[in-house]
Structure formats: structure tokens, C-alpha cells
């Protein structure tokens, strides 16, 4: 299969080489991120991309120092893993409660080569439109990098869903019109709210990494053809949707097949799988 395109939402929690080097990552996987699958060599991750027909994957860490006294990969560990394969694109995370977060983000981007910011309001326990975070958003805007926010449902025990409601992100989208924002997981179950925001704010994007019942095929069919008609995504939001799998909670191959089976036109699939992600990653100043 031709390999082109990017998975914009993966967590490298199962990479065996990294767990061997950093044993604390086993606890992060099991007790913080809460994933039970077996650890795998990096090769399995890259083969997942291969059979999904994708070239690259965005790796997402979570700095939950204040809320959980832990990190799910540090920025340095993400950079270390990215050095193992040119197919991996690293994002940074910072503790949103840390006053030095903007400077730490600048360091992660300029010194470690990371290319976006991941924030998880439910796990990190903050509301996205808290004004104390605006310097962090301003730093991301200045750097020309996107922010990917976890939004919608959170599986992890102790994570409160209220932090992930889409309207928490409206002020950020409105106050930083030049800052590319991605709301992950279609913000399900508030997908209609998330679509409304995306229709109103062109800097706001949605990733497809949503699976909360049934299976990728049936869930996405429900969310992206029944809850919201597919035509809304194809006609109005085609430049604001990026493919994301949420690997390893969902295998990349399964989510890619589900998105490809929804009925999008080929040009729209190319936007979702490749072009939109490339544009988001290409704004680095």
C-alpha cells in the first residue's frame, strides 16, 4: 500500500525500547494512561503505519506533574524516540499550572525540535479558557505550532469530563485566531458543539480519533454520518479535519479503514489523511 499521510494522534505508550530505557514509563502506561496491552518493539508501531498506508505519526506526551505527579513521556523522551525513526513527529507537553510553561514550550520546540503542543485538560485539571494560560497560547502562536487539546470523553479514572466540553475552547479559538487548534476525539459526546465551533472558527480543527462504543466502523458511521451528516464534514470542514487513531487505544489500521469507509470523496480523504496535517505541522516560525 502506498504510504502517505499522517496519523495526528498517537501515544507511544507501548514502545518496548523506551520502557527498557525508562522503566517509569511502564507505570505511566498502566496507572496513568491506563492501557493494558503488551509492550511492543517500535517495529510493530511502524508496521501499523505501513498496513494503514500512512507515512508518519504524531507522538503525544502529557505533562501531568501538578495534577498527577507524573508525566506520560517527557519532552526529552519524545525527542529521544523521534530520533529512532524519521517517521515520528514529536509534540511537547507542559504542565499548564507551571508559570514557566511558556518558556519550557519554547525550549521544547527550539532545542528538542518538537512540532506542536499537546494539552489534556481532563488529566491536567484545567479549563482551557483560563486566562492564566494565555501566555502559553501566545508562545505557541509565536512559535507557529498547533495545540492539540484532548476534548470530550476521558477514560482515565479520576479525569473529569467537564474539562473537555467544547465550549471551554471557544474563547481560545476566538482570542487567538492565528493559533491552529485541534480538538481531539471529535469532542464526543459533544460532537455537534465541536462542529459548531469548527464552522465558526476556521483555526479550529477536529481529529477523528473517536471510539467510545461498538467498533471504529460503526462508531464513526454513527458520529460522522448520523449525528452530523457526512456532507457537513465534506463540504464545510474538509480543511479542518485531520486523521487521528488514538493508538494504542485503537489500532491505526482499524481507524484508518473506518475513516476511509465513511464515503468521503478521494480529494477529501487526501485532505484528512495528508494535506491538513502537513499544513498544521508546516507553520513553524
Amino acid at each position, binding site marked *: 500500500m502506498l504510504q502517505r499521510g499522517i496519523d495526528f494522534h498517537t501515544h507511544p505508550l507501548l514502545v518496548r525500547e523506551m520502557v527498557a530505557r525508562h522503566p517509569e514509563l511502564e507505570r505511566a502506561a498502566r496507572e496513568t494512561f491506563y*492501557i*493494558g*496491552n*503488551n509492550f*511492543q518493539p517500535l*517495529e510493530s508501531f511502524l508496521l*501499523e503505519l505501513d*498496513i494503514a498506508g500512512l507515512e508518519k505519526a504524531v507522538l503525544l506526551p502529557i505533562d501531568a506533574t501538578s495534577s498527577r505527579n507524573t508525566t506520560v513521556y517527557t519532552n526529552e523522551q519524545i525527542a529521544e524516540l523521534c530520533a529512532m525513526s524519521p517517521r515520528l513527529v514529536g509534540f511537547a507537553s507542559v504542565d499548564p499550572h507551571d508559570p514557566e510553561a511558556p518558556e519550557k514550550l519554547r525550549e521544547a520546540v527550539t532545542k528538542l525540535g518538537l512540532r506542536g503542543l499537546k494539552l489534556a485538560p481532563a488529566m491536567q485539571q484545567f479549563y482551557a479558557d483560563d486566562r492564566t494560560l494565555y501566555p502559553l497560547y501566545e508562545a505557541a502562536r509565536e512559535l507557529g505550532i498547533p495545540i492539540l487539546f484532548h476534548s470530550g470523553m476521558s477514560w482515565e479514572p479520576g479525569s473529569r469530563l467537564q474539562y473537555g466540553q467544547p465550549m471551554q475552547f471557544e474563547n481560545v479559538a476566538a482570542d487567538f485566531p492565528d493559533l491552529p487548534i485541534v480538538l481531539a476525539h471529535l469532542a464526543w459526546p459533544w460532537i455537534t458543539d465541536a462542529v459548531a465551533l469548527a464552522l465558526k472558527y476556521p483555526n479550529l480543527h477536529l481529529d477523528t480519533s473517536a471510539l467510545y462504543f461498538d467498533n471504529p*466502523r*460503526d462508531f464513526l458511521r454513527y458520529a460522522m454520518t448520523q449525528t452530523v451528516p457526512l456532507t457537513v464534514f465534506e463540504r464545510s470542514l474538509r480543511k479542518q479535519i485531520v486523521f487521528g487513531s488514538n493508538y494504542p487505544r485503537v489500532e491505526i489500521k482499524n481507524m484508518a479503514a473506518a475513516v476511509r469507509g465513511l464515503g468521503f470523496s478521494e480529494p477529501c480523504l487526501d485532505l484528512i489523511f495528508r494535506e491538513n496535517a502537513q499544513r498544521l505541522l508546516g507553520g513553524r516560525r
Partner: protein
Amino acid sequence: MIIKLERIEVQSRQGMEMIDITPQVEQAVAASGVHNGLVLAMTAHTSSGLLVTEGIECLERDVLAHLERLAPKEPPAGTFGYWHNRYLDYDGRLGFNAGDHLKSILGGVNCFFPIENGKVVRGSRQKVYFVEYDGPLARTVFIQVLGEAA
């Protein structure tokens, strides 16, 4: 009496795939020192299998195609939809590979052969296959050799 257990790792590269592990089974027997006895092999995973068949590509395709027909990856509509399609709290994710588990049951998860004069006794066309139903993954196969030394 010798009893030796070996764990080998098999890296699958496709979603569904048959991988000939006959050489690894024979190697385990050769390394065990068992002259007359039995060798058993078993996959450690419930979405993969072990089976014995003729080692030709056309049969590999037929095995995989018909297991997929009997237990499709995508859940059938209606009565035969998969109950496994639900959130598994112990795994932190949904279970949506019921078809792969069912293939594992249908195709089997283990096999055994006699050992005679230090060699695996098998039919001339028989090969031992590790069968991946939900790859690509690094998988573990247990090979246990039991028997008497020379």
C-alpha cells in the same frame, strides 16, 4: 526425563498472516537433548493461533480467507454482532477484535509432535504455522520439549 520450555518471539507484519515456525520448533528439539519424547507448541495470545497444514501459499490464503468468512473482523449485523464490542476497563480500551479471537478458537492455539531419535516426527508435507489474526505484533510462542535423553 528432560523437560525444557522455550519462549520464542514471532514478529508478524500484516493484519492476518501465516508464519512458518517449523525451523524454530525443530531447533528447540535439537537444543533440548531429548532423544525420544514429545514437543508441544502453543501461542501465548488469544487473537493468534498455531496450526499444522501443508506449507504452500495457496493453502495459506485459503485458511485465512475461510477463517475470515466464518468469523469476520467487522461485526455481522443483527443477532451475530459481537458482544465483545464494549469498553474493557482492565484494558483501558474497547474490545472490537472478537472476530480475531473466534478465528483463534476455530484454527486452534497449539500442536504437538512425537520426537524419535532426536528428530521431530512429522508428515512430509506438514508445517507448523504461527497464525496472526490481529497484527502486526510481536508475539510469543511457548515450545516445550519432554522426553528421555539418549
